[in-house]
């Protein structure tokens, strides 16, 4: 790290603990296959019919149905932050609600730890919502007539936890999200950021396996939003809880996500690490989307390096393969010479002025295509 950490202009300042590799082999918590959600008359006939391939406009004209989620499949691995991102109307909020069946999916399967969610009866579903997956909402969804402490304790109250116990647990959570001293306030007396901290504490109080975030920071102003994002990063680092995070903000997605699923018109157009999304956009829509992202801050030297020539693997500074290009530029500019990329004690390649600039200029994708 180069001390550039606190720079406000940088859209990403990912910590090393936060690497995509960490969760790559972990088992899937949520496993979603061929999920459809169609609103409208006789919606259940649309998936699998000849209408399934139509564009949203044509579908609406022919069947009167609106498709919100279209044949979506993905896995959320244990311990990762899985970001679903897309513009408004892309179906991302519907998708996250389908996970705990707040919105009933039209077809497809959802499994949590291998257990079928769609087949759950009322009791099992309630149990899932109470103990295994808790949600944080864009507009907080706090009960205005209860104090902060009682709001945080609400989930436990519903579970039937005794008053003393749930209050103690709630106080602990309030402390954890940095609201100590405000326990007796009403939600109406708090700022938006504080209210969302209450929402977060309420979700955490049940100690769920997965946290679901539905655009939690969209209603907050930019500085508060950044604070809250750091709070989430910190929580994730401390607890390693699995998170599904919905957002329409690309920089938020890149900052928080281990993996990102990019949605458009109900379908996932690309699913991958931030580096894959920015470095190898799947189509023109994604390319257009990530065009303004400062590439050097997302892409790593793994992408910029070239094989070392015979004499190059012995000298020069060493870099980890997860180092961002921006950091490598700093090293190379300081030393004036190339730097080695070392993984497990072995030199896997080198970066120099030319290769690094190539990444910044966006030449790497074409070069890769040639290679």
């Amino acid at each position, binding site marked *: 790290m180069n001390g550039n950490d606190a720079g406000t202009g940088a859209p990403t300042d990912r910590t090393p603990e936060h690497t995509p590799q960490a969760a790559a082999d972990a088992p899937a918590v949520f496993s979603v296959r061929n999920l459809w959600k169609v609103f409208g008359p006789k919606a259940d006939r649309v998936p699998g019919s000849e209408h399934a391939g139509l564009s949203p406009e044509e579908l609406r004209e022919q069947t009167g149905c609106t498709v919100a989620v279209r044949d979506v499949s993905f896995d959320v691995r244990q311990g990762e932050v899985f970001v679903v991102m897309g513009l408004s109307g892309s179906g991302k909020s519907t998708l996250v609600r389908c996970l705990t069946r707040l919105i009933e999916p039209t077809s497809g399967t959802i499994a949590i730890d291998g257990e079928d969610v769609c087949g759950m009866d009322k009791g099992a579903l309630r149990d899932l919502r109470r103990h295994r997956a808790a949600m944080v909402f864009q507009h907080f969804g706090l*009960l205005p007539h209860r104090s902060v402490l009682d709001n945080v304790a609400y989930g436990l109250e519903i579970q039937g936890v005794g008053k003393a116990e749930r209050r103690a647990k709630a106080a602990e959570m309030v402390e954890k999200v940095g609201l100590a001293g405000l326990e007796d306030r009403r939600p109406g007396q708090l700022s938006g950021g504080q209210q969302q901290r209450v929402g977060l504490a309420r979700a955490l109080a049940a100690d769920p396996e997965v946290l679901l975030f539905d655009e939690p920071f969209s209603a907050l102003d930019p500085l508060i939003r950044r604070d809250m994002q750091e709070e989430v990063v910190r929580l994730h680092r401390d607890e390693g809880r699995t998170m599904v995070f919905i957002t329409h903000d690309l920089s938020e997605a890149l900052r928080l996500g281990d993996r990102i699923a990019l949605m458009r018109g109900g379908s996932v157009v690309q699913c991958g690490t931030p580096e894959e999304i920015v470095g190898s956009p799947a189509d023109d829509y994604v390319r257009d989307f990530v065009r303004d992202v400062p590439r050097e801050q997302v892409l790593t030297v793994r992408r910029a390096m070239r094989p070392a020539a015979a004499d190059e693997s012995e000298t020069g500074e060493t870099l980890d393969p997860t180092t961002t290009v921006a950091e490598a530029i700093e090293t190379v500019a300081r030393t004036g010479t190339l730097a080695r990329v070392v993984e497990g004690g072995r030199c896997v390649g080198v970066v120099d002025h030319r290769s690094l600039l190539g990444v910044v200029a966006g030449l790497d994708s074409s070069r890769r295509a040639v290679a």
Partner: protein
Amino acid sequence: MSTATTPARAAAARAKKTEPEAAAGAAVLKALWARPAARKLLILAAAAAVLVPVAAATHGSGTWPSAFTVDLTKPLTGASDWIIDNRDSHWAFLYFFGHVSGAIIGAVHAVYTVLLALGWAGVTATAALLAWRVAGARVAVVALASFAACGLLGMWVPTMRTLALMIVAVAVSVAVGALLGLAAGLSDRTFRALRPVLDTMQALPAFAYLLPVVLVFGIGVAPAVLATVVYAAPPMARLTALGLRSTDQGVMEAVESLGATGRQRLLTARLPLARRELLLGVNQTIMMALSMAVIASVIGADGLGDRVYQALSTVDVGSALAAGIPIVLLAIVLDRTTAGAASPRSSRTTARTRRATAWAAGVAVVAAAALTAGAKPWPDTWTVAIAAPVNTAKDWMVDHLYTGIPGIGGTADLAAHYTAWVLDPLRDGLQALPWWGALLLVAALAWLIGTWRTALTAVLSLAAIGVLGRWELSMDTLSQVVAAVAVTLVLGFAIAVPAARSPRVERLLRPVLDVFQTMPQFVYLIPVVALFGIGRAPAAAAAVVYALPAVVRIASEGLRRVNPGAMESARSLGATSGQQLRQVQFPLARPQLLLAVNQAVVLVLSVVIIGGLVGGGALGYEVVFGLAQGDLATGLTAGVAIACLGLMLDRVTQPTKGARDGA
């Protein structure tokens, strides 16, 4: 994109094809057809052209044809006789109605006994304590002063009787209304079924509810309470349903996402979130119940209303005022207390223990007051008899103000002129209107403002009046209503416009409107009788005064809430204030202004009907006459005619959402 453009393009193509072929007359017709209002009138004119000659030829063009009337006197008298004969023997009365009536009488008596046992000091202290804990110290002082005033006026016992009746009626109304509202709030089907019924009930004058109850229960306290419940429960049901249905969806979703069961969702989220509406419902119910409890003196409710009623029937304004003031004070105390409970208070962080201590201290004070003063009604020596001086003042007014004031005449002259120059021609005109013309007029008005459904309901209601054989009297009532509504609207808009434009006028006006809006209709009859004597003019004056506050409030609020962006852009384009008013505020506030008209009609009608008590004649008098003579057939048909008239007037002035798309 394609969805929007294809039909438009197709329509354009069609238009291109037909245009050259169409004759000039057809083009004019088509231009008219394009405007929904003109289209409706065209359809109606076409229908009229076919039907009217037939109707006129077969049944004449005068009043409602007798061939279409059904004489209900015999069956109704028969039914009422049967009920009177079987009241003590038939099982329905023995095992159901008898128990209902017995329970009500028992409950009222029990409450009254408790109030007597508390004594004047205990009751006053309890009222002040409740007001203090629920709505704050200021309201507590108002309560204290009000109850003391009731005692001072020598009206303690009637006040307690009215209060006992009110307490029972409100408790039942709130329970019934909350249950209905709960059902409608949770089930869409119940809501759809219940809403038109509640809407209609709200538009009907209180008098219409009296007779069916009397038919079954006779005259007495039990029917008075029941009529009150029927009248006062709808607002509670309405607001409960509204509150439950309008809870923040985000909160409800969050609660569901935490795994709450259906019951938990209702008890911990939905009901608390609807708290404001629920308390507002209680407030509305109390106000409606009070106004009805007073009117119900006509069917045997004793207490304050009865005193006013008796005094008015002998034109004893002083006694009427002495009984009327406690009604007003009771209304103000009850309204402020319940409204105070409903309004959100900034911070209610006072510790539980402190609240408990305050309650305990209050209860101790009440107990002490009740013990020291003993279970006694207000001491006779502490009363001030205002009846005699008021009557002296009234006599002076009769001598000096009624007539002969240079320049403006006098109040009696004014009333006579209003009757002779406005009411009589209007009544004669309406009565001379051919029956099919009246139907057509109503259809046109209702359809232009609302939908074909409202038009149909309005026409059918009017026809029902004819069928019942109440056409002439209803036209008399209608003429009084129309004239009073016109006066109300002119005055109301004249006040509303400055109130909407100047915050200072609005601030001055608000407390006045607040007080006026809490008073029961009955009370307004007292001053107008003092001023104008008896007849149709005082009834109209009372109606105008009663309806004015609501009209001013709704209209000025509608004008003030006009989109500020639109106002600003009009100003920036250099519009004069007149232009702003005409071109921006009036068109944008149209729904609110129409609502004001609708309210004016409904409120005016309710008072015009009560005006039957002070010589207003027409349908209201028929009801009173029917009740007084035990001639239920007369009273009942008049009551149904009132209901039909109310329904018709409400539908004619009811703007609905569908009106916009011309559906």
